[in-house]
C-alpha cells in the first residue's frame, strides 16, 4: 500500500516513537510527471506560494549540478548515516509500505524506474516498444544487466519473478493491484496456473507483456517493486529468510541487517547505470532523539519536527544554514466517512461536518504551516491536480444550515458518532483534537474518539466496520491520478473503506482508465474529483506542506523526492 501509514502529523506528535520511515525526508525536486502534457505542466506552476517555489528551484539547480558531476567523478566513498525504522519486509513482492520500499528500491530494480525528477526512465530495460493498439509492450534488457553476484539478468528471470509475485503461495497483498493489467493474471492470482499468459520470453534479452486494455499508467505501475527481478536460485535456496542475503540488481547490496539495530548497505561495484558516490549507507533502526543525534553529529540527515521548527527557522541559529526546505510528498490525510452508515449516509450531514472545520486556522496556528489545507483529493503538483477546485471551505453558517437540513438535526435521535484512529500512544493528533472542538463549538455535535492499535484498525477498516476513521494518509505509488481517485473511490475498489458509491463517479473513472488522450484523461479525473468532493465522501484534511530537513553540509546530492525512488547512489560525502 505504499501507504496507508500513520500520517506525518501523528508522527510529529509522537516524537518519542520517532523515525517513521521517510517522514523526515524532503523533496528538493519539482515534480515533472509522466503525463507531460502542457495543461498539467501549467497547473503545476500555479501551485504553491511564490516563496516555496523559488526556494525549491534553487535547490534543484544545485543538486542537479552535483548529480551531473557525480557521474563523471570517481566515487566519493564515505558513509551516509540516517535514521530509519525496521522494514516489515525486504521481499519486493510483499512491499506495502514506504519504510520497506525505501530500502528495497536500493537493493533491487526492475525494467523501468522513476528518476529523482519522477520521470519514467529505463532501468534494466534499455528500450521498449509499444504496439499501435497500446496493449503489447516489448522490452529489451540491457546487455550489462547483472545481479550482485555477477550473473546476467535474463528475460526468463523477469518472467519467473513476476509470476512468483502473483503466485498465491507468495501471498503478496499487492500483486493484484500492481500487476492486474497483464493478460491472464487472474488465473495465477487465483491459483489455477502458475504462468501468466501475458508474459512471453522472446529470447534471452527480449520480454513481451500483453495487457488487457491500452492503459496509460501501465509502465508507471512497473516501477513498483512487484515487477522487480529476482534471482530464482537465491530465492529458492534461501527459504523464507532469503532476504537476509538478497542477490539483487540495485545500486546497493545488503551488507548487514540487524533487526532493531541497523541496516548497512554497500555500493554494488558492478552497477553501471549512473551515479556513484557514497560507499556505505548506515540506517540506524533503534530510534531515539533524532534532533539531538543530528546536532551531535551521529546522523547526517533529520526531519525537523514541530518541537524544533521554530528554533531551526531562526536565522541566528547555526543549524539554520543546514536547513533544506523542499516541496512535500504526494500525500493526503483525511477523515473518512462510511457513507453506508448513519449518520454519514446523509450527504448534508457530511457536508456540515466539512464546512465546520477551519483548516486554515489549524494549519497556520497549530501546525506551524507544516501542512497545506486540502480541499480536493489530488495533492498539489500531482498530475491532474486542480488548483481551481473550491471544495467545502470553512463556513459555520452554512454548516449549521446543512445540519438543520439533514435528517440528523436532532441530537436526541442522532446515532452515536465514533471516529476511530489507529495509535500506539495516547495521543490522537493535534489536528483531530482541534477538529473535535470545532465540531462541538460550531455544530454542537459530540463525537467519541476510539483509539485502537494498528492491527485491529486495519482489520476493521477492511471490513468497513468503522463509522468514521481518521489518522490515515494515502501516499502516491505512481504519478497518475488513477492511484488516488480510482483506488480510493471506485465503488468496487477494495480500498474504498467508506463504501462511497456514486454511479457517475464510477463511470468517469472507468472511462479514464482507457482514455488514450492525456488531456482528456485529466479532464475526466477532474470531473470525478469534483463530484467526490461535492459529495463530501471524506473530510480531506492536509496535503503535506513544505518539508523541513537538516542535511549536513558534507552530504551532497541527496535528493528529497516526493515519492520513494532509488536515489542513494547519487549521494556524495565530501569531507
Amino acid at each position: 500500500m505504499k501507504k496507508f501509514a500513520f500520517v506525518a502529523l501523528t508522527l510529529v506528535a509522537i516524537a518519542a516513537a520517532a523515525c517513521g520511515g521517510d517522514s523526515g525526508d524532503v523533496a528538493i525536486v519539482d515534480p515533472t510527471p509522466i503525463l507531460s502534457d502542457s495543461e498539467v505542466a501549467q497547473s503545476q506552476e500555479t501551485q504553491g506560494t511564490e516563496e516555496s517555489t523559488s526556494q525549491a528551484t534553487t535547490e534543484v539547480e544545485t543538486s542537479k549540478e552535483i548529480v551531473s558531476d557525480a557521474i563523471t567523478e570517481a566515487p566519493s566513498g564515505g558513509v551516509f548515516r540516517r535514521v530509519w525504522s525496521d522494514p516489515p519486509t525486504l521481499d519486493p513482492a510483499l512491499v506495502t509500505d514506504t519504510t520497506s520500499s525505501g530500502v528495497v528500491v536500493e537493493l533491487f530494480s526492475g525494467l523501468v524506474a522513476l528518476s529523482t525528477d519522477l520521470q519514467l526512465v529505463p532501468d534494466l530495460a534499455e528500450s521498449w516498444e509499444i504496439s499501435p493498439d497500446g496493449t503489447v509492450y516489448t522490452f529489451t534488457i540491457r546487455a550489462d544487466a547483472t545481479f550482485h553476484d555477477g550473473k546476467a539478468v535474463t528475460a526468463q528471470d523477469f518472467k519467473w519473478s513476476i509470476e512468483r509475485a502473483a503466485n498465491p503461495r507468495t501471498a503478496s497483498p499487492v500483486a493484484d493491484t500492481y500487476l492486474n493489467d497483464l493478460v491472464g493474471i487472474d488465473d495465477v492470482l487465483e491459483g489455477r496456473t502458475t504462468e501468466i499468459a501475458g508474459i512471453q520470453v522472446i529470447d534471452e534479452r527480449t520480454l513481451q507483456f500483453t495487457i488487457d486494455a491500452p492503459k496509460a499508467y501501465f509502465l508507471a505501475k512497473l516501477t513498483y517493486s512487484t515487477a522487480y527481478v529476482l534471482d530464482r536460485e537465491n530465492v529458492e535456496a534461501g527459504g523464507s529468510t532469503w532476504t537476509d542475503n538478497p542477490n539483487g540488481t540495485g545500486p546497493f547490496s545488503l551488507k548487514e541487517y540487524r533487526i532493531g539495530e541497523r541496516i548497512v548497505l554497500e555500493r554494488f561495484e558492478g552497477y553501471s547505470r549512473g551515479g556513484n558516490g557514497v560507499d556505505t549507507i548506515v540506517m540506524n533502526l533503534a530510534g531515539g532523539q533524532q534532533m539531538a543525534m543530528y546536532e551531535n553529529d551521529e546522523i547526517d540527515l533529520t526531519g525537523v519536527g514541530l518541537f524544533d521548527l521554530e528554533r531551526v527557522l531562526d536565522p541566528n541559529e547555526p543549524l539554520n544554514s543546514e536547513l533544506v526546505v523542499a516541496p512535500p510528498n504526494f500525500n493526503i490525510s483525511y477523515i473518512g466517512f462510511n457513507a453506508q452508515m448513519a449518520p454519514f449516509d446523509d450527504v448534508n450531514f457530511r457536508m456540515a461536518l466539512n464546512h465546520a472545520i477551519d483548516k486554515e486556522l489549524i494549519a497556520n496556528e497549530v501546525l506551524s504551516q507544516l501542512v497545506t489545507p486540502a480541499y480536493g483529493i489530488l495533492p498539489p503538483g500531482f498530475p491532474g491536480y486542480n488548483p481551481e477546485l473550491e471544495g467545502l471551505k470553512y463556513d459555520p453558517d452554512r454548516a449549521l444550515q446543512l445540519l438543520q437540513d439533514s435528517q440528523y438535526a436532532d441530537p436526541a435521535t442522532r446515532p452515536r458518532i465514533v471516529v476511530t484512529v489507529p495509535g500506539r500512544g495516547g495521543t490522537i493528533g493535534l489536528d483531530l483534537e482541534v477538529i473535535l472542538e470545532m465540531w462541538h463549538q460550531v455544530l454542537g455535535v459530540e463525537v467519541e474518539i476510539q483509539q485502537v492499535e494498528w492491527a485491529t484498525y486495519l482489520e476493521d477498516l477492511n471490513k468497513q466496520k468503522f463509522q468514521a476513521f481518521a489518522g490515515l494518509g494515502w501516499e502516491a505509488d505512481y504519478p497518475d491520478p488513477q492511484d488516488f481517485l480510482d483506488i480510493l473511490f471506485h465503488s468496487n475498489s477494495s480500498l474504498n473503506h467508506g463504501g462511497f458509491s456514486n454511479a457517475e463517479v464510477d463511470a468517469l473513472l472507468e472511462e479514464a482508465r482507457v482514455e488514450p488522450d492525456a488531456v482528456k484523461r485529466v479532464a475526466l479525473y477532474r470531473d470525478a474529483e469534483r463530484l467526490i468532493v461535492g459529495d463530501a465522501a471524506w473530510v480531506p484534511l492536509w496535503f503535506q506542506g513544505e518539508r523541513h530537513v537538516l542535511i549536513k553540509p558534507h552530504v551532497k546530492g541527496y535528493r528529497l523526492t516526493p515519492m520513494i525512488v532509488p536515489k542513494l547512489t547519487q549521494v556524495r560525502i565530501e569531507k
Partner: protein
Amino acid sequence: MWIYIVRRLLWLPILLFAVSAVTFTLGTFGPGDPVVVQLGARYDEETADRLREQLGLNRPVLVQYGDYMWGFIRGDFGESLRFRGRPVRELIAPKMWVSAQLALAALIISVGVGLPLGFFLATRQGSWIDPTAVAVALFVMSVPIMVTAPGLLWVGCLKLGWVPCSGWGGFFDTRIIVPALILGLPGIAGMTRLMRASTLDVLGQDFIRTARAKGLSEWSVSSRHVFQNAMLPIVTILAFSVAGLIGGAFIAETIIGIPGIGRFAVESIFDRDYPVIMAITLVGAGAFVLANLLADISYAFIDPRIRIT
C-alpha cells in the same frame, strides 16, 4: 532443606505452564488478527485464508498451544509474524542480551552507590545525615523517567558533549552511561534503605558485641563482620530489582533509541506479534521465577531462622 528445593523446582514447570496458558489465551482471544496486520491495507479474504493456513493459524487453539509448548521446550519459539519467517529466538536473543547488559550496568550503579551509602547511614544513625540522605535517594527515585531521560540527554550530550545522544555500543561503550544512569539512579533508594536496615539488624546482634568485646578495631568489626553479614540479605532482593528495571526499560529504550528487548516488546505488542510476545513473556517469567527461587533458597541458607512452609 533439600526437599524444599526439590519441591520448588518441581513447581517451576507448572508455573510456566500456567503463565503460558494465560498469555496464549489472552493472545488468541484478544482483538487484532495477526494475518490482517501482515497483509496491511490491501487485505482480501482469500489471501488471508491462504496465509492463515500457511502459518497454521486455522487449526484448533489447543493444537496450536500444544505445538507451541512442545517447540518451546526444545528451544524453538516459533516464527515471528511481523518479520515473516524469522525465528523468534534469533530475534529476541540479541535484544535480551543488550537489555541484560543495560540492566547489569544499572544494577552496578544502584548497588555500587546504595550498599556503601546504606552501610554508612546505619553507622551514622541518629545524625542529620541519615534521614537527609534517604530523602535525597527517594527524591531521585521519584523523578519520572520521561523527565530524566530527555534531561540527562540534553545536559550530558548536547550541553556538555560527554556522551553520545543515542544508540548502543555494548557494555564498554560510553553510550551505555545515560541509559544506565536513568535506570540505575531510581534503584539507589531501595538499595540504601535495605542495606541500612540490614546493617542495623547485624549491629544489634550478639556476635558483633562479642567481636567488639574481643577488642577488635572498629574498622575490622565494620568491614569484616558487619558489612559482610549485612550484605547477605541484599542478594535476595536483586531478583526483584531486575524486575523493577523492566518498566523503566520500555521508556528509556524508546526515548534513547536502544535496540533492547523493552522497545521490541512494546513494538511487538502493538503489532500483535503473538509468537514474540509469548516468547518474551515466557522467558521473562521463567527468568523471574528462577531468580525468585534462587532468592528464596539463598535466603533459607543465609538465615536458617526463616521458616519454610
